[in-house]
């Protein structure tokens, strides 16, 4: 009886997603950037930190398609290496903030006794200024982490944790709202009625049904994390000075803005494109998951 079977939910979402042109374009751009930074080192084998002083401040040429910086380091290689770091930080920090946000959101929504406590905690974190907080964290914890993970991995862990731990609040609120609404639905009441333990209700019934708001806030959180990392690097904190990230490249280029605008435009443009792409993707996902979207 194939005629009567409903279309699988995944298909519906994909169909709705395809209808959203911005989302498709955003996903394509993002996919391209991620592929480029992942495969970049194999396709473009120049070392991003190698200094060739004879070729400094060179314009675009076959040897250096995007030119070189003030010390003769290849801009293309630096952009690719910088993108790897920036996008990796974005995704990892998103995972941290998502995990934490979902946990707190579900707990607050599901257990009434925890609700006011956890939501006040969320308010507290929302009131904290993120950048100064992260600066203090970098100052306090850089050295112990460097010691245990090495300079680059250490600062990676630090930046990811710092951003993740200060950006979970919107996710927690959205998830709590969804859980509160869900909790009163019949199927949850039914599950409770037949004696399903809370943990099982959460994993079996609640989490799959709040997946859409989580996914959307994941997309938006990634964009935020990339921006925060760029801001940190721009301020000269975070990764070691010779370690390229998009924010660092942008900050290095500000002095040369008038003479070599390309040096600032490339990393700046890529940050913009990534963040825009992620935002459109998130937008499309939200529309695609929205049940009311099919009413048309």
């Amino acid at each position, binding site marked *: 009886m194939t005629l009567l079977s409903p279309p699988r939910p995944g298909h519906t979402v994909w169909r709705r997603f395809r209808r959203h042109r911005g989302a498709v374009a955003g996903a394509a751009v993002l996919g391209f950037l991620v592929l480029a930074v992942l495969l970049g080192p194999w396709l473009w084998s120049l070392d991003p*930190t*190698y*200094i060739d*002083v004879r070729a*400094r*401040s060179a314009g675009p040429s076959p040897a250096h398609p995007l030119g070189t910086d*003030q*010390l003769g*380091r290849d801009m293309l290689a630096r952009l690719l290496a910088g993108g790897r770091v920036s996008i990796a930080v974005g995704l990892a920090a998103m995972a941290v903030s998502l995990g934490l946000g979902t946990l707190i959101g579900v707990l607050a929504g599901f257990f009434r006794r925890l609700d006011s406590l956890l939501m006040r905690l969320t308010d507290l974190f929302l009131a904290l200024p993120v950048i100064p907080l992260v600066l203090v964290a970098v*100052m306090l914890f850089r*050295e112990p982490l460097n*010691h245990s993970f090495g*300079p680059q991995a250490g600062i990676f862990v630090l930046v990811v944790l710092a951003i993740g731990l200060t950006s979970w609040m919107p996710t927690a609120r959205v998830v709590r709202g969804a859980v509160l609404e869900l909790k009163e639905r019949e199927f949850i009441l039914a599950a409770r009625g037949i004696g399903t333990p809370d943990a099982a209700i959460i994993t079996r019934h609640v989490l799959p049904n709040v997946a859409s708001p989580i996914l959307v806030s994941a997309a938006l959180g990634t964009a935020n994390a990339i921006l925060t990392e760029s801001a940190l690097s721009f301020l*000269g904190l975070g990764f*070691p*000075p*010779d370690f390229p990230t998009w924010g660092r490249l942008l900050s*290095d280029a500000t*002095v*040369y803005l*008038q*003479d070599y605008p390309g040096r600032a435009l490339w990393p700046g443009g890529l940050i913009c494109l990534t963040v825009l792409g992620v935002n459109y993707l998130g937008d499309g996902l939200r529309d695609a998951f929205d049940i009311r979207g099919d009413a048309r």
Partner: protein
Amino acid sequence: MNFRRIRRLAMAFLTLAGTLAAPLATADEAQRGRDGQVSILYWQAPSILNPYLSGGTKDLEAASLVLEPLARFDETGTLVPWLAESVPSVENGGVSGARDTITWVLREGLEWSDGTPVTSADVVFTWTYCIAEGGGCALREKFDGIAAIDTPDARTIVIRFDAPRPNPHVAFVGAQSPILQEAQFKDCLGPRAPTCTGANFNPIGTGPFVVTDFRPNDVVQFAANPHYREPGKPAFSEVVIKGGGDATAAARAVLETGEFDYAWNLQIDPHVLANMAAAGRGQVVSAFGTLVERVVLNQTNPDAAHGARRSTLGHPHPFLSDPAVRQALSLAIDRALLVEIGYGPAGRITCNLIPAPDIYVSQANDGCAMQDLDRARALLDGAGWTDSDGDGVRDQDGVPLSLVFQTSTNAVRQDFQALIKQWWSQIGVATELRNIDASVFFGGDPGSPDTFQKFYADAQMFAGAFDGTDPESYLSSWRCDRIPTPENQWQGSNIARYCQPAYDALVEDMREAGDIERRAELARAMNDMLVQDHVILPLVNRGRVSAHANDLGGVVLNPWDSELWNIADWHRKTAE
């Protein structure tokens, strides 16, 4: 305030006046205040005009328009008489044979800007003002060793030292030690010094200008001093010193937009500066003093495992205590390239910590100007540092040549770090770079782990210089007892933790040496010790860099004293 508009108005007025008075041009030349206003940009804004309560360069220089010393240094580092008739010396009898008294004589007919006469009592008062208990005088060391000051008459000042002073020209010499008016400051002694806001913000002086309006950390306005001793000077009737912004914006305001006539301290990429100068509105001037950018190698172990005792003498450095390693690190650096990339015409290669004055400059180290990677590798091979585990980094007995290299956040310094890291990697030394915000790095806060005094790294880069032309106190900063330690709250000038009894002995010798030739010989010997031990690797002798508009005449950039030292001679050049 719109400086452009004011200037345009002033220019229009002057052009008009010029046309009307054309036949009287020569008479006009000698007129005080004939050239209207000159606007100066200090991107660090002056916050007080009493040098004794500040010591900051920006404040000293702004105050130097008003307050003047007895003698000061000219652009070659030579002492020239200023408020005094002549510079006292043993030859002219001004300095006693035993070098324990010095006699200054004020010029005749000197007047303060309020019309009252300048007397020797004012000079004595300046000394009592600075040494007063609880006054917090920032330039106290200028008056070290003075036992008494006598005033036989209104123009004569006899300073008696408690011990022979090889270099008696310290007190009342240079922009750091000008004369205050007793009548204005007599109620401001000791703890009351900072409360005399009126006097501190508007000191009465003898200089070519008087303060008309002062807004701290923003703008100072001056007008020509009607009682200035030289007729026909200054050529400008008004000076505006505007503060704020950064070095790049300041350079742009003079060189590209022409909003200002003079901009101070333009330490930016030489390439960017040259491009701005190409606009043709102004020119960049530089002058070399004693400022040397250097890499300092830690002689103690900064390993965090040593806890509170890290970077102290009890724990020698695992590999930087080997002279061969230090020499190899120095040989690997291409100083010519550093100068070219970072400073351009505002920098010179130096192999010495004392790059000037000429008499103190050692000729023994000039070889460092050539990079020699092969010799560096051979040195490391010879000392037993080989890459035994094949990871590209040399090691010995399980200790890899891997170091942390830190400096303050600054575009030029980060470029230097990247270059030096690459050179060091070419001789098999791994480097991890760190940069720290300048206000923290140089902040001296004993609670912060990131200050340059604590030196929780293996190598670090910064610049240093000495005041005036005598390097004695500067060279004594590498004495053993000047090492920063937890006991002295990490206050100490011997950042490298260099501790050699032979060096300390030379410092003692110089303290007692009176003859200039002998002093120069000792200074060169100490310089050679520090440099040839490769504890400090001098890189670049940095100049002062400023810019002035093309039509501003009379600017003589002076690296030894205030940059505005000869503002009385500044004038507007007339178009040919």
